[in-house]
């Protein structure tokens, strides 16, 4: 009896609270993005009397000579580039780190942990990027994301490689595969499930990143979507409908990722919960 009461009563209360606390704020974004400028300025949580949703979206996209569209392009290049490099290089390190007991391992393990914990020194990083001629370039930002994100990838890959039997490596070696072929032809394809996890988690992280873009790719013209959205705050104080249309647009890519890859995202982000 108590269980049934808990199941339905507790569940209903929890759903109600979750709707108020989590769903209502997101609905507010959608409603406000659908209002006219005059109506949006009241900041009310209400159904728009007149839906001008698509007009608002188009206005935001066209704003300042398609700035947001270019920003979306930059963010896409940044995300794809950084994540692709991270996955390949991280898998290589995680694989060798797990398979071979060399005297480098303690050092590499320490550096991986350091990369997870230590906050990056931003101004000296700018100094290095300037020396390389990569400051304020998309390539520079990609490289920075790779450097800061590798540690997380290596940890996940190392843990997963441990589940692949060594007999497989030996069979491939007997068949004459060299180290490069062994890794890219045999091991790498077997890492698929963890690769998907790493890709989605890091893609969401890189796409949502604001801090590194602010430091290493500042400005407005060549910026990422997070930066243009942030700059939009100061420009559109009076037109909340457009501001929220912008917020809605940058929320959509992570939402799509979440719908398709919920399991992998959850697996990646909670990894280590059981092992500690």
């Amino acid at each position, binding site marked *: 009896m108590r269980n049934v009461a808990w199941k339905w009563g507790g569940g209903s209360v929890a*759903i109600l609270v979750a709707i108020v606390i989590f769903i209502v704020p997101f609905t507010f974004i959608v409603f406000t993005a659908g209002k006219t400028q005059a109506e949006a300025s009241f900041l009310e949580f209400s159904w728009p009397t007149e839906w001008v949703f698509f007009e608002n979206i188009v206005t935001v996209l066209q704003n300042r000579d398609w700035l947001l569209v270019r920003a979306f392009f930059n963010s896409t290049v940044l995300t794809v580039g950084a994540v692709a490099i991270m996955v390949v290089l991280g898998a*290589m390190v995680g694989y060798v780190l797990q398979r071979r007991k060399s005297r480098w391992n303690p050092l590499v393990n320490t550096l991986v942990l350091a990369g997870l914990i230590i906050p990056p020194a931003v101004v000296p990083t700018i*100094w290095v990027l300037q020396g390389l001629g990569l400051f304020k370039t998309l390539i520079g930002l990609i490289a920075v994301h790779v450097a800061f994100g590798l540690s997380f990838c290596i940890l996940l890959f190392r843990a997963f490689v441990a589940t692949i039997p060594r007999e497989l490596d030996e069979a491939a*070696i007997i068949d004459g595969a060299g180290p490069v072929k062994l890794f890219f032809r045999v091991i790498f394809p077997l890492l698929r499930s963890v690769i998907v996890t790493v890709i989605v988690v890091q893609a969401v992280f890189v796409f949502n990143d604001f801090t590194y873009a602010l430091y290493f790719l500042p400005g407005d013209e060549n910026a990422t979507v997070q930066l243009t959205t942030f700059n939009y705050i100061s420009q559109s104080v009076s037109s909340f409908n457009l501001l929220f249309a912008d917020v809605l647009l940058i929320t959509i890519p992570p939402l799509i990722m979440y719908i398709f890859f919920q399991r992998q995202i959850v697996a990646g982000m909670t990894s280590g919960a059981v092992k500690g």
Partner: protein
Amino acid sequence: MTTATATGRTATGRTATSPPKPGRRKPMKSPYPTWFFIPAGVFYVVLFLVPTIASFYFSLTRWTLFDVEFIGFDNFIRFFQEPQLVTGFINTFIYAFLTSGAKVVFGLLFGVLLSSQIIGRGFLRATIFFPVLVSTIGVGILFKVLMDPFDGPINESLAVLGIEGPAWLTDPSIALLSVALVDIWKGVGLATLIYIAGMVAIPQEYYEAAKVDGAGAWNNFRHITLPLLRPATVTVVLLSLIGGLRSFDLIWAMTGGGPGFTSDVLASVIYKQYQAGFFGLSTAGNVVLFLVVAAIIFPLSWWLNRKEADQ
């Protein structure tokens, strides 16, 4: 990148040429070449390790765009003398410990709730986790509007209930706490999922055995669930502390460190000093942040993991 491929070629070249020499063949070259570390290492060393080490030198200088002048510990002395910078230093601790503590408590609460047999579990888990994935800037903009002291929906709703809502982000005494509240709102989903993963790993036999011994719900929680969730707690505490101590974007989007500098934290001080052109002072802030993070995280993780091994 180029050095990496070059080394790669020589390494494979050597393995290809060595077999013909009879007798000199040492144990076969490992199929797991160490040069696999090199490409990743180049990124890591050039863009993470070198700047981190360089920061210790630059923090001791007066550094502008044009020149570097060694001034000893002046930056650090200044850091702990100017009230504005000291506020940022103290706020970092308040913010990190508050958000971390709240995420542990609420994460555990929701984790236990969402592991029990209630309707709508899948919906609840998805709902609570989604804010984790939304851009921090988007969340910051959203709550800046929701928390508007006059027209904001939060205060208008409270007014309907007869409560006069505070001036969330414009009242100097609670601005930092308001941002921390939003940080908790955004991050509690991750803590919850970590706890759920921990709950799943607890064998049901323990509960069955406890049932035979006549244990109630509270005893189950106190003596089985809580101790066995320790690894999950360690993860939540460490993750949220590391994130909390470094956090910047939410604060920057919501208050910009204001009103005045009452909601500044180390990360926002670093950015402000950088913007003002005080690169040396900014880097000193970075070194302070580094030391704070290291001084908290390393002993804490050692202590938490040791206790775990003892049990």
